[in-house]
């Protein structure tokens, strides 16, 4: 009942995040979309935690901490890309093209 709504919200949020990751050209926005995905997962974890103890909440806190670190690294990368190329357009970063 109530759980379904949380799961639907998380699914919607996840889809928005995936959409952002795939579509956005701005690197910073891609990172923000990844945050959305992570937070969608957090909502799932917390929602399930209401049914089966506190383990899910602990995991959610872990994810938040790891996400903070990930954003730190990600933003540093983006900053370096900007310094080197004067652009943070993801589409231009295709050196790995086969």
């Amino acid at each position, binding site marked *: 009942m109530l759980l379904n709504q949380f799961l639907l919200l998380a699914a919607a949020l996840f889809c928005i995040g*995936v959409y952002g990751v*795939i579509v956005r050209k701005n690197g910073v926005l*891609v990172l923000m979309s990844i945050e959305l995905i992570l937070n969608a997962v957090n909502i799932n974890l917390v929602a399930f935690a209401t049914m089966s103890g506190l383990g899910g909440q602990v995991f959610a806190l872990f994810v938040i901490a790891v996400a903070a670190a990930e954003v730190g690294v990600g933003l540093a990368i983006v900053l370096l890309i900007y310094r080197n190329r004067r652009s943070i357009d*993801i*589409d231009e*970063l295709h050196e*790995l093209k*086969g």
Partner: protein
Amino acid sequence: MWFLTHVWIIPAVMALSFLLILFFGKHMPKKGAEIGIAAMGVVFILALITAGQWINHSNTEVHGAGEAAEVAALANVDPSCAPAVEHANETVGTELSSDEASSGGEHGQAVTTAGTGESATAATKSAEGGEEGGEEHHPTQPVVRCMTWFESTGSHITIGTLVDGQSVILLVIVAIISLLVHIFSTDYVHGDRRYTHYFAFLSLFTASMLFFVLSQSLIQMIMGWELVGVCSFVLIGHWWEERPNSDAAMKAFLTNRVGDVGLLIGVIILFFAAGSTFSILDVNILAAEGGISHGLLLLASCCLITAVMSKSGQFILHTWLPDAMAGPTPVSALIHAATMVVAGIYMVARLYPVFFEGLSIAGSSVNVLSVVGAVTALFGAMLAFVQKDIKKVLAYSTVSQLGFMVTALGVGAWTAALFHLFTHAFFKACLFLGAGSMSHACHHSFNMVDDYGGLRHKMPRTFWTFLIATLALSGIFPLSGFWSKDEILAGTGSFPGTSGANGTYHLMLIMLLLAAFCTAAYMIRTIWYSFYGEYRGHGVPHESGPRITVPLMILATLGAIAGLANLPAEFGSFGLRFEHFVEPVGLYFPELSHAEFNVGLAIVSLAVGIGGLAVGYLYYWKGAFKPLHGLAERNTLARTGKTILENKYYFDWLYTTVIVGFVKGPLARATNWFNQNILDGIVNGVGKGAVGTGNWVYDNIDQTVVDGAVNGVGFTASESGGVLRRLQTGRIQQYAALFFAAAAILAGIFVIVIG
């Protein structure tokens, strides 16, 4: 005893001297000669002490024998000498005196006296064998010392020293001659371009010969033999810048190689016949007691005779010896008196049981060894008549005298052979050094017919020493050559009234008497051309310095008195000393009987010698035998004979033109044809076949199957890569989209399957 067991020091001193001269000689004040002479002096003294100890050993052995036998049972034998000693224990009963055993036990070395035990058989044998000569011939054990050099499939290859009368006498001869040659050389080759090198090789030459005469095993003997050969090669070719000298050295070396093959085969036969042992004593004991079949011994001795023919200049391999005169004269003296050529004689004497049994010397009247010796003695002496070069006369004289020794060995007169070797060493060295002295005075010419003459008053010391040596060589009483030559003649056992010889060799006696006549005649011819008549060279000859004349005088003295070493038995305790101390008695030596001195034969032999001298004297001095003068120009037969002699019986022609020519000419062509047509045909056929097969394989298997597979794999990979590379856009978002899509699809499948 100490010197008898440590006799290895003697060759070691000379080897050390060789190395010292080689490395430091050039920086020494006398350019290395002083090292050589000092080493020779040490060796000379050591050899004399060794000889003294050997004489002492021989004398005490007689009295102390009983005690030694008691110790024998308790003696502990070092295993390294085991083959020799064990064998001796089984077959003859070895004994070891206690002091020897204790002094030699360290470092895998063992000292033992072997081969003449006190067992019942040995005692009876020596009692039977030692009757002649008015004095009982007591057994004296050789002093053996050896260590294992290496070991292969159970057979020990030992190296060591075997000291008995025979090796001791050779030590003394080599030491004396070599010392005098060293001293002589300091003057003779003074200022030579390779003075240091010369003395270094004199040292090595002496060391090799000393090493050879002390051989304990056959392998060691071969090593010494080859070392002597290579040193003579170096010294004969000392002045190698002139083509004939290097050719002579090469000839000496190659001719000796022919005989070396015989030596090698003979030794191999003996090795297997004696049950895988190289020990000389073992081989000798087995051969003497009949442990080796007669056929094998005959085969081995024939092979070894080839070696003697080359090394000791016997017909038909003697041709190198006169050519070896190309070397410096002191080297010739050393080669002819003490080292190189006596090696062959020494080898036969050392392995005497092999020859004695193999050739059935006792009781026979002809055998290979004696025929080779007698032919050499006579035909070598005849060749000396037509030589102009004084050194060549002496060279053929050596060939002839070596023939005497070989004949003596062939007829069983072992002691006579060694005794003649002993006396010959002195007077022949004296003759060679005398020739060197004359050449020194006459502008280095050796042509006595054209460049010498009348040197009697100009070089009195050289003249007198040369004359004494000549008389000794001719066998004039009472000089040394008389005694030794007479002993050989008596040893043939052919002269009526001689008793005690081993066989009756009539032919040998006649040939040797003829050879003795020729010897005296050609020597008087040499004296005539060198010392009498008018001086025919240029310049004014003068007597040589003391370093040349003193050795001459010493050698002449020794050549005169050396015969006293083995006076006939009639002289009582002064008689037969040489035989007593030198000839081995024991199971490693055959039981020889000894020909007794015969006054009739001595007179005949003396008459022959004097006759030779007299004929020469009348012919040259008095101009007698008028019809003979210039006979060669008038008489076809005489001319033919002279031509044959001048061409040295065409042996060189036979070797160079016939044999070498055949090898170079028809044989080489035939071989070439065979090579071109048959061998090359086969090789080419095989090659063509291989190329054809290769081409077929290349076309059909390599190109289609192998390359097809390889190319196919490559093509597939390349094409699939070309397809797949389109996926690799480098755009992260595209990857992410694919990733999510795949995850979604998999999740969908998962839900459906689980659900």
